[in-house]
């Protein structure tokens, strides 16, 4: 499998071992074990409620796991606030609902964290923001407020905002699920460019085309467990597990 090859040649960016997570009595993650290498693009698939979003949110500790270990870029996630801050400044995240700051302009959304977390001078931060907005294809919207943009544009701003911190890992939590069909492509294009540029990415999505084309590896989850993982060809053409087959037959 490509994961093992990657394992040998590149350093590990995310290492999860036996991660358990409960919400009250409900166990959302059951012994999740996976390793994601540098520059690898991993797509996480699964039916709703399978724990994929919970898992990805554990990786920058928006949710705290209760058992097992998560090591991100060599730093273990514990309750130590400094570790969390360090990891959050190295892990970018893009949400399903964009979560842009509605009271700030697009440019301010992008420059806020570099200015205050990275202590970047204002002019440098704005220069960088303009470059990133150029990259995601909306340089002309910098002075607008998020509410004045379309969903696809907002999601691209959200990607630029995450990239402004120069993260080593990008997490995408269903980035296209809240978008109108004609806007999905513009967001996926940006993500594809990012993957080609060598970013380590972990993507929760229902976009099978994206998974097939861009992913190095596909992980399939159900009921909080990793059921099957492998290269896209293997996964889509020749799955081994029955549950995977059932899922694929339902969505394809």
């Amino acid at each position, binding site marked *: 499998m490509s994961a093992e090859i990657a394992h040998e040649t590149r350093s590990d960016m995310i290492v999860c071992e036996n991660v358990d997570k409960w919400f009250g009595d409900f166990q959302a993650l059951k012994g999740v074990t996976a390793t994601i290498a540098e520059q690898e693009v991993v797509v996480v698939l699964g039916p709703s409620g399978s724990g994929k979003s919970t898992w990805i949110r554990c990786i*920058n500790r*928006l949710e705290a796991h209760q058992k097992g270990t998560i090591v991100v870029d060599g730093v273990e996630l514990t309750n130590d606030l400094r570790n969390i*801050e360090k990891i*959050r*400044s190295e*892990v*970018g*995240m893009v*949400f399903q*609902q964009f*979560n*842009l*700051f*509605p*009271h*700030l*302009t697009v440019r301010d959304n992008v420059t*806020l*964290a570099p200015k*205050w*977390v990275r*202590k970047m*001078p204002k002019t440098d931060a704005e220069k960088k923001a303009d470059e990133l907005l150029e990259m995601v294809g909306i340089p002309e919207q910098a*002075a*607008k*407020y*998020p*509410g*004045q943009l379309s969903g696809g544009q907002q999601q691209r701003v*959200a990607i630029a*905002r*995450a990239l*402004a*911190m120069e993260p080593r890992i990008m997490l995408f939590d269903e980035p296209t699920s809240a978008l109108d069909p004609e806007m999905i492509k513009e967001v996926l294009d940006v993500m594809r460019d990012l993957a080609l540029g060598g970013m380590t990415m972990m993507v929760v999505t229902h976009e099978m085309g994206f998974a097939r084309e861009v992913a190095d590896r596909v992980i399939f989850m159900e009921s909080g467990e990793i059921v099957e993982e492998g290269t896209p060809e293997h996964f889509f053409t020749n799955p081994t597990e029955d549950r995977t087959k059932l899922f694929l037959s339902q969505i394809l």
Partner: protein
Amino acid sequence: MNEPTILKVTSRPEEVSRSPREWVRKNLFANIPNTVLTLVFGAVAIYAIRALLGFILSGERRWGAVATNMRLLMAQGYPADQFVRVWFTLGSLMALTGLTLAAWRAAGRLSIGKISIWVMNTGAIFALFAVIAPISWASRIGWLIAAAILLSIGLGLWFGLRGEKKRPSGSVPTVWFAFGLLGVLVLSLWTVPFGHYAFVEGEFIAESGRTVATSTKLPFTVMWLILIGAYLFGVLIRERIPGSRAKGFLIALWFLSPFILNWIVLRDPDFDYAHIASTDIPLALLFAIGGGLALYLLSKPDLGEIGRIVAIGFLLFAVFNWIAAFFGWYPMLQKVRISFVLLALAALISPNFASDRKTRLRFVTGWIVLIAVSHWLITAINSPSTLELQGPTYLGGFSLTLFVAVLTLLLSFPLGVLLALGRTSSMPIARVLSTVYIESIRGVPLITILFFFSNILPLFLPEGMEIAELAAIVTGYTLFSAAYLAENVRGGLQSVMRGQYEAADAIGLTTSQRTGFIIVPQALRVSIPPLVGQAIGVFKETSLVAIVGAFDLLRIAAYVVPAQTEFLGVKREGLLLISAIYFIVAFSMSKYSQKLEERVGLGER
């Protein structure tokens, strides 16, 4: 600001213009129940207006009681020879207003059509009054003539300047229209005989020296000129300085002005300069330079935990100073104690500024400004007053009402936001303390709190420490208002989506950055309507301070004026006047909040 996107509109449906007759039929007499309602409520409205007009215009009314006592109502017993300070205060506010209007480019324009409609409406209302008011035929004709003049001015404007589309073209800047209206008001001071005047041999002669118009017409004219001059000056220089900097400076001035202007009203200008030179200035310099140096070192990026340890050391020392003060172990200037607290707090936040030289120098500059401002304020408050006044406080009447309301709002705002944050915080101690505070304050009537602070609190204070009555009132009122404000802000905080917290966390903001940049601004925006409602409440309920002995607007109108031998028992005129004053202020606040909502709604999804 960006340009709004212009959408291509193929064709807009014609606006249906309705004749007045159709409008009346559709809205007032559409069917039988509608007609009945229109007639009943029309009759009630006419009766009420007639009663009110009858009251105002009745020959029994002695409006002279109000006009003559205007000084009492506005400033109570403030010594007449010191009035120049009051005028200085008002003049400063006028200058600030003018500069602010210029800096914010108050570019609104009023169309001539709108103005002419207003004028015509006023004329129509006058005519209506003339018809329904219970007055003599002579004055009725006078009213009708006034109405006719207004109507013809309105019609003249409408038809004289009529452009291509049925409405008059052209417009005037709103600012200048407002200046013009104020100018008319000021002019009325020169021409209309307010107060005690008699008509002798074709001339109005002052009967006694107590009229307001004669003594204030010159100052008010100067105020008007200052307003216009400041505006023109602002327009002249606004192109030469960066807008954001000028605006920031003006906002700072507005926030500081209540404190500084109060000092000007309260204090005698010739206080002990020797003490200032020998103690106050060296002390301020010591804290500015020494503290600045300490903060510069403490914000070194590679300092690590040592910075926090030193800061906690500072804090412990600062707290110890206060404990020592309470038990009287050793003497120390209050200013030094407060400055140590400030230094400790600044040291605690210094790791947030651990960055390049420029950021740290900016941090130190902020510290020096803080020391300058705080030392100035403490000096101002500590220096003794040489104004000798009758009555319990140096302020009274409308100025007291305004003073208490403005200061209470300014002080309770940050406190309320902190309490709201405390109540929603995840730290149990902050949450419990804030909740207990809010709930216990909300369980006690305002009057009780005012009594407590003005009468009972002085008994608990340590030996030699006194609290001025007005300070006690403002303190109590602030604590009260903050609890309510906190609940309003909490409502706003709860409306901020969880995703906003997560997004802020995900980009690596610290908790305080998240709160200050993301959560509180959005919460406040949502809370504007309840916050303004509360501001109006705070303003109106200042009338309760009369109960603890302060001479506010209500007390003077209800008890002081009717007790004068000349106007014995003349109470209703004053009450009606102060109702109008309260209404005008409250209504302006309400209108302003609508504007504010529109403006901040810009980025709304």
